[in-house]
């Protein structure tokens, strides 16, 4: 047994948080660095393109939260599914979706993953088992539970990773889903990305129970609080939760404690928190800096790290160029994909 009744929904700070996470090999650290840098540089570029008017509508950046999707993806196997809400760019890149296709969707071009018809919040890739990209807060939780239902119906051993935020955790359908998932022992890991703010409302102002790992207590769903800024801790928790699901034990909840550096969306002045608070997290806990420092301590040269960054920047610049030069969808696309 990976977990037992007694560690169902432990209080904050116990167990997994007090012990240092298992260390990464140099290769794992390098992999995590590349993946996290890809997301960060992508998001910085997206922010820049938004500022230039090349990206419209809403644009929610993932900067600060990179360790979660990168660590969780390292725990997944082929065919496992991923679904999330609207802050989805990082999830798509971590799933292996092409930065060009994602960026071109942000700019509303025909080469975008949804051929320019979905935008930032609505992208999908059957090939990479990424099921969206959903704009209604909390909707992805019952959809992700449905993916797990399909796995169980088919008798395969795939697991559905269903991501949502601390804000979505207050939606009713989350608990409807928890109930069914445990009742039917569905293989779903619920990953609550607690970045402390639901748009502009802090967790303390919106939630009666701020320990999100305990949100499954009345359904007997085991839960843990994880340091979501440490990619090693995320991967270790992911390994455990995915194994639990794959072995047919039902759902698992992981509360990832994290922080978003940018506003809720590009048009958010973020006056609900202080600059000092943001700076402190960036300075003390940045997920990328943690890996960089480990690699430097392991005698990887500054030069090699610069090369990695340069390569990532090149990928992102290529994506941005493509996204700005690819044509807009053909006018005939207006009437396609309504039915099949």
């Amino acid at each position: 047994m990976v977990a037992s009744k007694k560690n169902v929904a432990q209080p904050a700070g116990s167990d997994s948080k007090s012990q240092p996470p298992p260390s990464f090999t140099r290769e794992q650290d390098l992999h995590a660095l590349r993946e996290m840098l890809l997301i960060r540089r992508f998001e910085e570029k997206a922010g820049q393109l938004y500022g230039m008017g090349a990206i419209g509508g809403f644009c929610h950046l993932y900067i600060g939260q990179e360790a979660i999707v990168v660590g969780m993806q390292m725990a997944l196997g082929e065919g496992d599914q991923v679904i999330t809400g609207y802050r989805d760019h990082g999830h798509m890149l971590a799933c292996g979706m092409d930065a060009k296709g994602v960026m071109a969707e942000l700019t509303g071009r025909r080469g975008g993953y949804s051929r320019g018809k979905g935008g930032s919040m609505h992208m999908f890739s059957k090939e990479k088992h990424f099921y969206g990209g959903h704009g209604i807060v909390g909707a992805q939780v019952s959809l992700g539970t449905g993916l797990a239902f399909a796995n169980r119906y088919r008798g395969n051993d795939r697991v559905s990773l269903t991501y949502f935020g601390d804000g979505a955790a207050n939606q009713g359908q989350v608990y409807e889903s928890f109930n069914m998932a445990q009742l039917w022992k569905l293989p779903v890991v619920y990953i609550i990305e607690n970045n402390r703010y639901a748009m502009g409302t802090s967790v303390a102002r919106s939630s009666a129970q701020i320990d999100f790992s305990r949100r499954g207590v009345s359904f007997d769903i085991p839960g843990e609080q994880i340091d979501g800024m440490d990619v090693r801790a995320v991967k270790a928790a992911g390994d455990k939760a995915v194994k639990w699901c794959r072995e047919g034990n039902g759902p698992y909840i992981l509360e990832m404690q994290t922080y978003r550096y940018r506003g809720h969306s590009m048009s958010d002045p973020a006056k609900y928190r202080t600059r000092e608070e943001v700076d402190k997290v960036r300075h003390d806990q940045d997920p990328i800096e943690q890996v960089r420092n480990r690699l430097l301590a392991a005698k990887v040269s500054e030069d090699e790290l610069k090369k990695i960054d340069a390569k990532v920047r090149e990928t992102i610049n290529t994506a941005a160029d493509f996204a700005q030069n690819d044509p807009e969808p053909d006018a005939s696309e207006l009437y396609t994909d309504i039915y099949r």
Partner: protein
Amino acid sequence: MPIQVLMPALSPTMEKGNLAKWLKKEGETIRSGDVIAEIETDKATMEVEATDEGTLGRILVPEGTADVAVNTPIATILADGESAADLANTDAKTQPKTEPTVSRTSSAAPIAEARPANEGKPMAASPRPGISEDPEVPEGTEMVTMTIREALRDAMAEEMRRDDDVFLMGEEVAEYQGAYKVSQGLLQEFGARRVIDTPITEHGFTGVGVGAAMAGLKPIVEFMTFNFAMQAMDQLINSAAKTLYMSGGQMGCGIVFRGPNGAAARVAAQHSQDYSAWYSQIPGLKVIAPYSAADHKGLLKAAIRDPNPVIFLENEILYGHTGPVPKLDDHVLPIGKARIARTGQHVTLVSWSNGMTYALKAADELAKEGIEAEVVDLRTLRPMDTDTIVASVRKTGRAVTVEEGWQQSGVGAEIVARIMEHAFDYLDAPVMRVSGKDVPMPYAANLEKLALPSVAEVVAAAKAVCYR
């Protein structure tokens, strides 16, 4: 080459803003994420974060400047190894390095062009092409008289035998054998894996069904009544209906949502609403509302095979009605095709689902007075078979719509609009609507009767449009 910092657009509508304050001075080191300036928009004061690293080379727009247009260069950042001397080069070329290729206003233009000339074809999005006629029922086919309840059960059982991906979920569908006994015997034949009792949790199990459909299964989701599906409306519309379009055709869902819709008897306002109009408005959904037993079977089978989300509206009053159903191995009917239930030349009555009960009885009454009514049973509300309605109205020159739902923005209103668009010159009288009254459904027996349409109202309307 030095990097230019442009005046950012901080909201979808922002065109200019005031540069309130510089937080970095020329010559200061800048790291990605540093706040370099504050900008006032019409909504709020926003911080501008640097996305590039280096040294602040030159401030091009001093603080306190009002109405700085979006994309105006406001500063330059020098990368490692660059000096102020490099600025001269940039100043010469004032074009920003990464200028957006398409401005917001120009990108809006092609959409207007894309809209096809209307030419009286407002339903361009509907999957009209390719809808076939009902398949011929071979001469001598045995007709079996069965209840609509049984026809629905047989349709599900046949499709479940045919395809292991088809399953039924909903409240009381398995052990209880269906709240209205529509799923009788299915648990016994297919087992608990494929006939699944859900908790009372419409929003949740609708999402679970849609998620399973996105993964490739073919769920039949039963609502005990469509009144309860209001709790699931977000998943029905935002997830089921829109995902195919929002994914550029990649991720759709073949799923059937079925259950009784509209008024039953004496259950008052919260259990009596007709949702025909609500669902029929949504591109991405197909909406079926049959009347006869044979149509219930043939269209439910078609709905289960359809790769799109289908809303299948049944009626509690009709469950016990019987009718002939052809005994065929595979009785499948086309979605989107109306049926002429009775031919006539004086007036067209258009209806669907239980509305047909009033329409057919009224046609009998009218015949006694020498008025031959043609009765069109729509069967499918979306895509709507405009051609059949229009052909009938061109023949009769007069029309009455009959529905249990409300008039305002109702299906009848839509039919009237289409007749006006496609057969205006053929009309000999304004089209009339018979409908449920504009009130929440009352409980008292006499009031309930008054709130629903009646045969007498249909007869009166038909005579009125015939000027009799």
